[in-house]
């Protein structure tokens, strides 16, 4: 870490600056810029397939942008070599879309995994720390279950405990609410908020679940087709009368995001046989 | 507990595997024969070695006392030069004779040693000069046919 980070870097933990990313010729992100303020929970929302997950992968350094810069703390992620990148990733936690728990280990070993791999702590200390993390997500009693024995909500909570195992400064959530029942949804939502504040971490949530995330986040980016369409605090978004924001927040079937996939004139298509 | 059980099984597996390797080496391959350290080499020249191969046994009175270690061709005398490694426990006189024999009618070929009466013993690098070549089946048949034909010539000339 640099001795005196510039003001903006201190305020914004993650800065994405004019990033373009494409798989071959398919453009996923186009000149996108966004900032994540330290200590906040930020949601990046958008329809499925609009490049939200790609954004997380860029921050984690798994993908490199075609142009632009991704800055985490005062490090420019695309320029890091593998060793530097791995050192940075130790300070990041990530919750994957389907949890991605290690299926050959029980709940305890899953949460203890990073501590065992990355630290030389004695087994008693690892035990205490792991039980603390499991306690925080309310699953201390499930420590010896295998991932296949967990319900979807429990698996998500274990994955959450694993993501915060090393007390990261940045936690990224990829669709933390997908496929959960309302109770689990509320639990996970509350956990994200409380854990973020308790750890003094910064969280980025990528989601398409508007209602749940608006309850817990500080700031929202709305994305569509690889560009940021709207941004603001939760109040800003709820008050906004931008047609796109309204369509998304009110979950309307048709609007600026059309119901129909681009096609030629309906009549014409029916006539040509 | 779980971990110990796993270690136990893997340990058992490795022990079984090593035991199998030892069994293959000692019981199946009988790795108690001679090693090169305690052997001496002598040379022998043969007109024809037939089907003799490197590592073929060298036997005296039916006991394996050594092995063929090398087969070469002498371009001057046009003979086969066979290097034989003999276990140093066994000593043979300098007038020893060697012959290439066949175990059974069609079996593998080996070198038979018949020791002589000389009091001097063979040393490393010595040449054995009393040798008899392999019996080649084709030559035998050829000779047999030739002698038969000779018997037959009398009859044809008589006609």
């Amino acid at each position, binding site marked *: 870490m640099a001795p005196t980070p510039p003001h903006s870097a201190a305020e914004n933990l993650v800065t994405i600056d004019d990033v373009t990313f494409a798989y071959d010729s398919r453009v996923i992100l186009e000149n996108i810029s966004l900032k994540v303020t330290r200590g906040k929970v930020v949601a990046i929302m958008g329809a499925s397939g609009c490049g939200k997950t790609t954004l997380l992968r860029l921050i*984690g350094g*798994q993908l490199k942008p075609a142009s632009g810069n991704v800055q985490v703390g005062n490090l420019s992620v695309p320029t890091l070599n593998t060793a530097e*990148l*791995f*050192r940075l*990733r*130790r300070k*990041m936690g*990530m919750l*994957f*879309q*389907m949890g*991605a*728990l*290690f*299926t*050959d280990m029980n709940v305890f070993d899953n949460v203890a*995994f*990073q501590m065992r*791999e*990355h630290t030389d702590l004695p087994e008693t200390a690892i035990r205490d720390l792991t039980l603390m993390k499991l306690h925080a997500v309310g699953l201390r009693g499930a420590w010896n279950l295998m991932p296949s024995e967990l319900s979807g909500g429990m698996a998500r909570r274990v994955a959450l405990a694993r993501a915060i195992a090393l007390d990261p400064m940045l936690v990224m959530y990829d669709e933390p609410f997908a496929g959960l029942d309302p109770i689990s949804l509320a639990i996970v939502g509350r956990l994200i908020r409380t854990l973020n504040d308790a750890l003094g971490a910064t969280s980025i949530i990528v989601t398409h679940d508007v209602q749940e995330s608006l309850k817990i986040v500080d700031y929202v980016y709305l994305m569509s087709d690889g560009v940021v369409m709207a941004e603001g605090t939760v109040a800003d978004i709820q008050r906004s009368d931008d047609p796109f924001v309204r369509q998304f927040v009110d979950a309307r079937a048709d609007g600026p995001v059309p119901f129909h996939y681009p096609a030629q004139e309906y009549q014409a298509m029916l006539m040509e046989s | 507990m779980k971990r110990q059980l*796993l*270690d136990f*099984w*893997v340990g*058992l*597996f*490795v022990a*079984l*595997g*090593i035991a*199998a*390797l030892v*069994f*293959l*080496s000692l*019981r*199946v*391959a*009988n*790795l108690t024969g001679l090693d090169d350290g305690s052997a001496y080499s002598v040379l022998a020249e043969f007109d024809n070695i037939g089907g003799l*191969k*490197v*590592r073929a046994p060298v036997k005296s009175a039916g006991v394996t006392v050594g092995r063929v270690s090398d087969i070469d061709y002498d371009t001057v005398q046009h003979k086969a030069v066979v290097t034989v490694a003999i276990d140093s426990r066994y000593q043979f006189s300098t007038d020893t004779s060697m012959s290439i024999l066949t175990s059974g009618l069609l079996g593998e070929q080996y070198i038979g040693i018949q020791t002589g009466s000389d009091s001097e013993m063979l040393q490393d690098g010595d040449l054995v000069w009393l040798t008899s070549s392999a019996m080649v089946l084709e030559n035998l048949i050829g000779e047999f046919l030739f002698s038969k034909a000779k018997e037959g010539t009398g009859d044809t000339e008589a006609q």
Partner: protein
Amino acid sequence: MSDYLQRVSGFFQALGRPVTEQLVALGRAARFFVEVILASGICLRRPGLVVREMYFIGVMSLVIILVSGLFVGLVLGLQMYDTLERFGSGDIVGMVVALSLVRELGPVLSALLISSRAGSAVTAEIGLMKTTEQLTAMEMMAIQPVARVVAPRFCAGILSVPLLTAIFNVVGIFGGYLVAVHLLGVDTGTFWSQMESAVDFRMDVVNGFIKSVFFAVAIIFIAVFQGFHATATAEGVSLATTQTVVKSALVVLGMDFVLTAFMFRGI
């Protein structure tokens, strides 16, 4: 005219595509091989990981190896005795069984059996870890999946296959012994002495062992490669599993010919 040219060039492209695709795959495999070898240091630093995988690759394959080895030995004993007896040399059945097992059948059959029992399981396991994002998750935790997941399985496979092959050989010889001595009435002493006189340590046992090490590297590498590069869908994993068994079989048989040609050329 340009249409014609396009068709011709298209034809040549279609002709060349499989070749270039295979070359790309080969290059990727070679790079992955180097990557795995470089990452294999973890096997020495953390032997516990290797022991765990040896349980799944070695111990779990024991039953199929023991049963198949026994039956191969029994059948070899019966068949060989029947053929040899026509020439009045039924007594050397022990030697024939031992030689065929130690030189060829042991290494080849065990490699084929292990690749279908353990190789396919390794592919499916790694493929599933990829499909469920476990490998990506590991990478995000600053842990190299090649070192943590692939290398221990690779080392465990290389250690397990030669041991399993030796066990297969011994059980097979025992099967031959049962048939020859107890069923067909060959003398016990003759059975063993014929075997001992014919089987050479360097030529047969060591060469057989070398073969099994080569096969071990081949089948376990194919298994981890297929798993690690499987398409991350259920379909992709099942395809990769099938490919592991098929490719292992082809590579083992092909390698066997090459190795045999090198080893037994002069004998």
